[in-house]
């Protein structure tokens, strides 16, 4: 394990984190909340001290960086980022308990949006901004951001690929253009462009600028932290519609946007994952609208459609905003929403979940196995978008599915210690692990995670980070061989 190189990358990451804390600090200082501003200042000081110490310790980093180093590096980076990112909340006493603060910021970085706050509006504006900023940074990945900015080591090294693979979601991560730096710049360029568009549309709908910034960057990362206790419910129908559209947009694979920019519209239209994504969204909206209309939940059809579309967009893209308390909806609607939590967004998007691309592979493998039983001699390959998928990718997908189910089961068992209802516990785990935010019953859209004990919170923090990084970067940290020098 090349610990020195990892240390160097972590020291870079911490600086990036500190820089992204600055807007929050300025906002606090301008708003006269000196205690919060001071908390930010102290945190930034601590971060700089740690980062420079790490930098000095890891000056003589050797070359040579392999996929295991990449996994460990990404896992460590995200944990360390969460530990430092929680400091402003605790130092300013806005979230007095450190574990709660870590939960909040891990939920931010992993774009979950699960909160332990009973009263969101009580937080100072700077803290709210920092919470939402963490969504934005976590959505596309902070290491990808770093790759776009600095050459971590010489220009010929391919090791950055390991970092991209470990941090970006999807079964088969690749570059868009030959240079990693260019790839990262393109990804962040698209990300910033879409975020700004979202912001402009929100401001046109007369949303206050501060709210618009927080909601836009929260939507971009498919996070789900709002600035009001009612999430999005108290905004106008126009704003809710804008949010619906952008949540769905951020759940699309970003390489589709790149292809669009390159003028390869045909390739985008033929993308199987996109078909499934949109198909699932339309189907879910239709069924939920129907079930709500039958029970006459909302006065008009328009409102029914708006709420169901918003909730489907929110849960399919793993954002977790809410316009209404869907915990009160009929059972079939809730069941569909719960299933959407599992499926999650497309690979290569900012969303969480199992990913549609992976689900597609699992379904095709299932079909292949069924056919194999009926016709054993037949040689079959799995194709996506007409291309044969490598067996190694299929094997990894299978392994991922097993680990995914196991982690949900084990977390569910541990979280059940706290004595909430079974539905609450299972949805809490699924919601955190798939980076959603709200669940059902005890943690429904109008409630939060503050009731859980310390152990459960640690488990849920693990689930959130593991879910965002697709399990293995976090899981390898528990392997003894990850900590050996060789």
């Amino acid at each position, binding site marked *: 394990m090349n610990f020195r190189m990892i240390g160097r990358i972590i020291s870079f990451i911490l600086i990036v984190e500190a820089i992204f804390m600055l807007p929050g600090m300025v906002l606090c200082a301008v708003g006269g909340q000196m205690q919060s501003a001071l908390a930010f200042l102290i945190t930034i000081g601590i971060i700089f001290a740690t980062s420079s110490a790490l930098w000095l310790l890891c000056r003589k980093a050797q070359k040579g960086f*392999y*996929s295991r180093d990449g996994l460990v590096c990404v896992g460590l980076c995200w944990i360390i980022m969460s530990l430092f990112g929680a400091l402003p909340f605790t130092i300013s006493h806005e979230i007095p308990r450190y574990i709660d603060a870590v939960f909040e910021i891990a939920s931010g970085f992993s774009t979950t949006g699960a909160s332990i706050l009973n009263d969101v509006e009580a937080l100072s504006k700077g803290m709210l901004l920092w919470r939402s900023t963490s969504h934005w940074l976590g959505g596309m990945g902070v290491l990808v951001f770093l790759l776009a900015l600095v050459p971590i080591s*010489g*220009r*010929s*090294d*391919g*090791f*950055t*690929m*390991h970092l991209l693979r470990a941090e970006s979601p999807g079964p088969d991560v*690749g*570059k868009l*253009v*030959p*240079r*990693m730096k*260019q790839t990262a710049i393109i990804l962040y360029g698209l990300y910033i462009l879409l975020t700004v568009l979202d912001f402009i549309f929100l401001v046109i709908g007369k949303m206050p600028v501060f709210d618009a910034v927080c909601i836009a960057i929260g939507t971009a990362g498919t996070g789900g932290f709002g600035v009001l206790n009612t999430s999005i419910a108290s905004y106008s129908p126009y704003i809710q519609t804008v949010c619906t559209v952008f949540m769905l947009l951020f759940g699309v694979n970003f390489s589709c946007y790149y292809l669009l920019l390159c003028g390869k519209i045909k390739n985008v239209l033929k993308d199987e994952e996109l078909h499934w994504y949109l198909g699932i969204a339309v189907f879910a909206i239709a069924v939920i609208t129907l079930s709500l209309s039958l029970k006459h939940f909302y006065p008009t059809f328009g409102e029914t459609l708006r709420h169901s579309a918003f909730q489907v967009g929110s849960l399919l893209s793993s954002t977790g905003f809410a316009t209404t308390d869907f915990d009160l909806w009929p059972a079939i609607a809730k069941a569909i929403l719960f299933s959407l939590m599992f499926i999650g967004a497309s690979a290569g998007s900012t969303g969480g979940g199992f990913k549609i691309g992976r689900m597609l592979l699992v379904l095709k493998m299932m079909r292949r196995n069924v056919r194999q039983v009926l016709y054993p001699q037949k040689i079959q390959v799995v194709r996506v978008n007409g291309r044969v998928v*490598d067996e190694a990718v299929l094997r990894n997908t299978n392994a991922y599915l097993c680990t995914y189910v196991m982690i949900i089961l084990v977390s569910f068992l541990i979280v059940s210690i706290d004595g909430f209802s079974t539905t609450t516990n299972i949805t809490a785990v699924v919601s955190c692990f798939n980076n959603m935010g709200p669940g059902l019953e005890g943690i429904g859209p109008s409630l939060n995670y503050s009731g859980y004990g310390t152990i459960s919170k640690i488990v849920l923090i693990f689930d959130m980070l593991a879910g965002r990084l697709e399990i293995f970067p976090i899981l390898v940290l528990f392997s003894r061989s990850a900590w050996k020098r060789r």
Partner: protein
Amino acid sequence: MNIIIAGYGKVGSALTRQLSAEGYDLTIIDSNRKKLESGQELYDVLVVHGNCATMSVLEEAGVKNADILIAATSADEINLLCCLTAHKLNKNIHTIARIRNPEYSEQIVLMRDSLGLSLLVNPEKQAAQEMERLIRYPGFMKREKFAHGRVEIAELRVTADSPLCDIPLMQMGSVTKCHSLVCTVLRNGNAIAPNGHFILKEGDRLFVTATTNELALLLKNLGIVTHRVKRVIICGGGKSAPYLAQMLEKGNIKVQIVERDQKKCLELAELLPFADIVNADASDLSLWESERLSSDDAIVAMTGLDELNMMITLYVKSCGVHQTITKLSRTESSALLDKLDLGSVICPKDLCSNTIVGYVRGMKNQTGASIAVHRIADGKSEATEFHVTKDTLYCGVPLKDLKLKKNVLIASILHLSQCVIPNGESCFYPGDTVIVVSDSDRAISRLNDIFE
């Protein structure tokens, strides 16, 4: 500049390493996923899986925006088809194909013009040319020509009985009585840029620049025996063998080819009426006894096995043969090879990739960009040829007043087509050509980059 490399084999990977370090945007195509995976993990490149001669794969690799396509797969026909298809998809692309089958060599010019190929490389033929040069002008382990042959960099080995052993470089001029400059010393596999106080030791390999005439003088004064080679025994009738045999025949040198495979022997006998084809196993040492080797002989070991080639060279050296050439397909373990007295070593893969890299750099040719690049000292150092232009810094300033970067050295200056081996008083002017020797880790692509 966007470059597509089709085929990630030996040449492909050597090219990738070199071109990626120089900052070009590379896309690699190969039909072997494992190879691609390893390439992607080592270098910052984009990989595309598939058959490089198909339109869809080439399009996926971005052929429409590419500037150069290098086809280096193992099959000539695929390389040609790949270049042809790429040319149809993008008229402005420069295509480089590796063609190694000697049977195609006569139609190469034809293919070049009608298929729109920019460059054809034949690693075996290049290797043969290099070997012929070494045999015809013996004494050196390797020679590289610069500036249309006016300057050469030659490799010398310091032996225990050499007059150069244990003297500082300052005194080299008085020992050799000619103008030459040591630009790199390879000791234990490390390239060192020496200064005047550097003391030469036994086993060092020196890379010396001088004009062609001075080099001959150098050899004479150093007392290196330069027997004229009368007979060359080639071990292994691979693809290079016919080329080499034909070239040597023109120089009136007797050629003998030892090949194990009888069918191949017959083919060779048909192709090369003047040469003696021996159907025997080169690893069989009794063969060498029956051949009665003498110092008039030269042995070229170029079978397909590196280990066997090394064995042959070491054995015949012990039989009193001075001039030996060993073909190796991998030179990565050069630190180890240094300990063995293998004589000249030739690596076709490196020769081939050097030619292509040279072409790519030539294409880039902005002001001050390099014209030609040669990798010396097993690829640890690079000798780069530059034109001095008006934009070059420090024109007319004596070299002793210049601060060059670490491990960078100006090996020679061509002023008014006169080669000058520089000392502290020399200076260069616009219109001159200079040859700069540097570490290959830090590629120098512009002349102004050499100054602090």
